[in-house]
């Protein structure tokens, strides 16, 4: 038996039935749905469908046969693909469409339909064959892909917008900042300059951007210190912070500038560009100087009438009649004491101002340390009748320091010991040699302070929490002491216990503040 000839079915003789059966099985084995419609009957009914079509549509054969194909579109009738199909049927032509179909349970599936006509010997269309594939999944993937692409495009658009936004935002920050900002390329050509730079140095964008930094404004920016910063310091020490430059500009005069410089090391288009922030501190320095001048004058002027008052007080004290009452005598004593305090306050004010602006000058000279200490102790003892100051130890050394400053520190520590120990009698002063330093400790048995307060006691205007109500003062003395000792390259510290008393100690290098530099 031979069903095939040259690879085709043989529909003749004894094999005809066998071929037909095989062909039907082949159609049922196809994963594509296949239908045949009879074009000679009214409304082109389906006369055949294979198994795949049944499973694809969810209808069984008996629900399919006799219907026109359109039943698959259910109520979704307005698809343009239907027109293409109708036209092809009318004209007896083949066509391919992708059309929305609905399963028996109502689920949508995309049907890729190949339709081809079958013609008889006269060329008349007798049947149509429809081969259908469920391409829902492919459609979905295609749709997802399109969606994704659209999303991507939208996202790119949003990101671009956001970038442009943040760029504009950053630019407005840079333009608003009250500090000059330049961006330089690696060859020191100005890439951009912000508004404040232009305003401070009275230049325009055209005169600045694209020009060499040193060439700006007829070479007025050719400042040796600036060259030094950019060429020598920046490459080794990135970033450079608070670099002070003073320069006389031809038109705007002398400017004192603080520079911060930063070279971008991040890989990318900005690599090696240099950011140069310029703060004009000319006015600030000028104001500081004027404040110091003002305080100098103020303290001088305040001390002038005080000198007269103190002078008269001393005359009165010396001419007190012996029969004067104790009350009268102690009143006179109190007035003198407070005149002295007023005098100290005025001096302290000027000290603080000078320390803050770094204008405190040291006049170092050698002096006998032990004598200085005992003189100060004697001086304080003479006016402290309720306390006994005991001086212990000896250094037998002369030291190089500003004697008046050290006297000021010791006076302050001793006055504090008396002030904060009103009910204790003894104050101990210990002096000793410690390596290349001399050390002084002032120990009182007064109110003491909490561990918390010891940490802050050298801060300007700090007053101990409980001290505040009980003792007068501005909180300047210890701050000034600390600064003075620091200026001498020594240290000042405190150990204290609440209710037991405090020990204030300081060290001073015997050979002056420069001794550790050699």
């Amino acid at each position: 038996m031979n069903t095939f000839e040259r690879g085709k079915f043989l529909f003749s003789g004894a094999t005809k039935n066998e071929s037909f059966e095989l062909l039907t099985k082949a159609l049922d084995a196809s994963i594509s749905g296949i239908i045949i419609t009879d074009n000679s009957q009214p409304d082109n009914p389906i006369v055949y469908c294979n198994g795949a079509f049944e499973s694809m549509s969810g209808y069984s054969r008996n629900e399919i046969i006799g219907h026109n194909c359109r039943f698959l579109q259910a109520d979704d009738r307005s698809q343009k693909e239907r027109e293409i199909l109708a036209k092809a049927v009318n004209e007896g032509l083949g066509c391919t469409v992708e059309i929305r179909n609905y399963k028996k349970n109502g689920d949508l599936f995309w049907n890729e339909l190949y339709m081809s006509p079958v013609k008889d010997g006269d060329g008349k269309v007798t049947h149509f064959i429809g081969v259908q594939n469920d391409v829902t999944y492919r459609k979905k993937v295609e749709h997802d892909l399109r969606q994704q692409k659209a999303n991507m495009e939208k996202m790119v658009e949003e990101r671009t917008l956001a970038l442009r936004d943040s760029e504009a935002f950053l630019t407005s920050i840079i333009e608003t900042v009250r500090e000059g900002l330049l961006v330089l390329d690696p060859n020191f050509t100005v890439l951009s300059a912000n508004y404040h730079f232009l305003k401070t140095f009275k230049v325009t964008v055209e005169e600045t951007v694209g020009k060499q930094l040193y060439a700006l404004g007829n070479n007025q920016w050719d400042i040796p210190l600036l060259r030094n910063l950019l060429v020598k310091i920046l490459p080794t020490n990135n970033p450079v912070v608070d670099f002070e430059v003073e320069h006389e500009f031809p038109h705007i005069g002398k400017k004192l500038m603080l520079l911060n410089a930063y070279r971008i090391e991040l890989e990318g288009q900005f690599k090696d560009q240099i950011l140069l922030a310029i703060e004009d501190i000319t006015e600030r320095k000028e104001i500081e100087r004027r404040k110091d001048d003002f305080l100098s004058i103020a303290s001088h002027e305040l001390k002038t009438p005080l000198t007269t008052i103190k002078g008269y007080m001393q005359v009165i004290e010396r001419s007190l009649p012996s029969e004067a009452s104790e009350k009268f005598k102690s009143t006179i004593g109190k007035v003198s004491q407070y005149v002295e305090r007023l005098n100290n306050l005025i001096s302290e004010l000027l000290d603080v101002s000078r320390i803050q602006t770094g204008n405190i000058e040291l006049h170092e000279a050698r002096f006998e340390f032990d004598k200085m200490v005992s003189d100060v102790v004697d001086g304080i003892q003479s006016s402290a009748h309720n306390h006994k100051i005991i001086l212990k130890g000896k250094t037998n050394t002369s030291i190089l320091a500003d004697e008046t400053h050290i006297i000021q520190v010791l006076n302050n520590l001793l006055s504090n010991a008396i002030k904060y120990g009103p009910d204790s009698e003894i104050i101990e002063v210990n002096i000793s040699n410690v390596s290349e330093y001399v050390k002084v400790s002032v120990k009182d048995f007064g109110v003491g302070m909490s561990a918390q307060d010891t940490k802050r006691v050298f801060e300007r205007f700090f007053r101990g929490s409980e001290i505040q109500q009980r003792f007068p003062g501005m909180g300047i003395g210890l701050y000034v002491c600390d600064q003075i000792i620091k200026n001498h390259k020594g240290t000042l510290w405190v150990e204290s216990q609440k209710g037991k008393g405090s020990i204030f100690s300081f060290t001073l290098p015997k050979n002056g503040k420069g001794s550790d530099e050699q």
Partner: protein
Amino acid sequence: MSSKNILICDDDEGILDVLELILEETGHTIIPEKNSLNVRSLIEKKMPDLIILDLWMPVLSGDQILQMIRTTPAYKHLPVIMISASRDGEQIANDHFASAFIAKPFDYDNLIAQVRKLI
């Protein structure tokens, strides 16, 4: 001890008065002067043995007067105590070869001691 002349020049009347009051104790003759411009002629007229000079005075300041004294052969060795409430007063006094410096506000005993030391 014979009475000597002490010339005091300070632009502040209060200080001038109190200095005069205190220094009377020394038994010397006090010549107070408020206007620093008059110091030169007073030196010529009164031949003081000691001058007490304020530093900051209008028109002619203490250091200028001191400089004039130290560069005039006739008065070159005249003892001069400089007084000032200014922080750098001592520095200026030393730089101009004052015989002594006393900070304002001054101490009674210290003032008397310094004066006695110089005349």
